[in-house]
């Protein structure tokens, strides 16, 4: 029997509950994941010390590895918030959505996806998507219906809507990056800093390289004169702020103290 240098971790009820709840929620922000982790410990192993989140997740992932599933961490493209989702690694299509939506709905998503990937800004307008309604596979769909389907996608966190335009939710990018890179190899855009798929971002007007907003924020953090890492030309866009979870938490606390907190404790 062959030995291996990395042992698969052990699953306890704490990990199993965590997985179940993460699955039910679909995608969670980091602070929600931490709270979920604490809850699972409280319920199943009150006296144990809570593992560091990274170790906790790595432990679970080492067991999930042989099933081609992973708890993947990503960051939202617009403001750099860390998010977590359970993704399938082996399937390289929109199959996660496949059993939830009808054939024509899936095709609508594919059409929207293609428009988004092709676009310059990473957004596809509602009008452009709805104009493709006649080309959908499966049952005929009217534009009114298609509008509702698009809203379904927003609610299930596959798309984000901003002022009548649609882009991919962080969850979709986490889940489908591989698929998108394989299906649209020419149209796909890559971030110059982190080398992953880029849907929304900033681009250099001289040489055309692109960067995610959070990557821009980190790269130019303490620079007074931001310059393109590729062609050294002056970087013409506003530099966003680096996401700070501490500031976020303070803002969250002041918001919820207005609405009195009645957390149900188990």
């Amino acid at each position, binding site marked *: *029997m*062959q*030995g*291996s*240098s*990395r*042992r*698969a971790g052990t*699953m306890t*009820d704490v990990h*199993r*509950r965590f*997985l*179940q*709840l993460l*699955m*039910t*929620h*679909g995608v969670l922000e980091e602070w*929600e994941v931490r*709270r*979920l982790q*604490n*809850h699972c410990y*409280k*319920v*199943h192993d009150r006296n144990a010390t809570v593992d560091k989140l990274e170790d906790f997740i790595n432990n679970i992932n*080492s*067991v*999930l*590895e*042989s*099933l*081609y*599933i992973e708890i993947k961490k990503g960051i939202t493209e617009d403001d750099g918030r860390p998010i977590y989702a359970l993704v*399938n*690694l*082996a*399937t*390289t299509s929109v199959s*996660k959505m496949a*059993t*939830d939506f009808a054939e024509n709905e899936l095709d609508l998503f594919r059409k929207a996806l293609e428009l988004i990937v092709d676009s310059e800004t990473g957004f596809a307008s509602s009008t452009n998507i709805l104009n493709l309604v006649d080309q959908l596979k499966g049952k005929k769909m009217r534009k009114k219906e298609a509008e509702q389907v698009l809203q379904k996608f927003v*609610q299930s966190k596959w798309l984000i809507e901003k002022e009548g335009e649609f882009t991919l939710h962080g969850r979709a990018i986490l889940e489908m*990056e*591989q698929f998108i*890179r394989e299906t649209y190899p020419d149209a796909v855009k890559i971030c110059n800093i*982190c*080398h*992953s*798929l880029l849907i929304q971002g900033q681009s250099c007007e001289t040489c055309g390289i692109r960067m995610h907003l959070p990557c821009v924020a980190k790269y130019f953090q303490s620079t007074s004169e931001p310059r393109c890492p590729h062609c050294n030309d002056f970087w013409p866009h506003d530099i966003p702020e680096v996401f700070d979870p501490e500031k976020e938490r303070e803002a969250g606390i002041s918001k919820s103290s207005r*609405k*009195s907190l*009645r*957390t*149900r404790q*188990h």
Partner: protein
Amino acid sequence: MDVSHNIHHCNLPASPGAQGEVNNAQIIMAVAEKEEASTTTSKNVYDSGTPCSPQSPQRACSPPMIMGSIPEYPSDEASCNQIEELEDTVSLLHRALNIKVFDLVHFLLFKYEMKDFTTKSEMLESIVREYEEYYPVIFSEASECLRLVFGIDMIEVDPFVQSYTLVTALGITYDGMLSDAQGKPKTDLLIVILGIIFMQGNCVSLEMIWRMLNNIGFCDWRDPFLCENPRKIITEDFVQEGYLVYRQVPDSDPPSHEFLWGPRAFAETTKMKVLEFFASITKSDPRSYPEKYAAALRDELDRA
């Protein structure tokens, strides 16, 4: 699914039930396991930035007693080729079966998320397909995996149709999240309802549920933001998910309806747990409801 990526066998200890059976498929798997141990496996996954080191996870299972029934290598060369061919076919089959197990696990995970039922024919049609004769093995490996890794049980709901539901094996609890996300677990409301039903003699009308909820001040001290549409949740969502059963009272005229515990509630929790919870929110002792406590104890004994 692309067959070309290498597959590991599920990293699980051998299930106690399976050990007694020595059917064809398991012999094949055991031989293929030996075969696979000598090949390097690597994962075919794009992961931007993170290097993926090729290694196979530590095997916890190895049924040597099954290996013993495989013939020894003969010295004859022609027979050696035959054995090689057999091992090739066997390892291909092993890989294909593993893929089917993963497919089924993914499919069932999805069903769990959707709180949907599934049937044997649905599983056969969408996943198992051409490997129908291996369905029992695929099914049992997938269920085992679900239980050990995810803590999810497959409960047979209807033995005639062979339909199954997927429930947590860990008991109902809150998820501890304020439900500001859409349609998220309202387990606290559910447990209260189950408690009410139990306390009222295992079946209760909707009016009684409302009365009790008001009595214990449930809807009062909950944020209205969270208690959005309790009527719909109780009469539709919980029923659909199998936690409650809503039926017409037999021989009632005019027809009246009542709520009972549903199959999923029985699978995921017990009367004792619900009584204990109920007592805790009314700040009393479970034993202060002697009749109910006795009923709950009896239920525990029956389950044991």
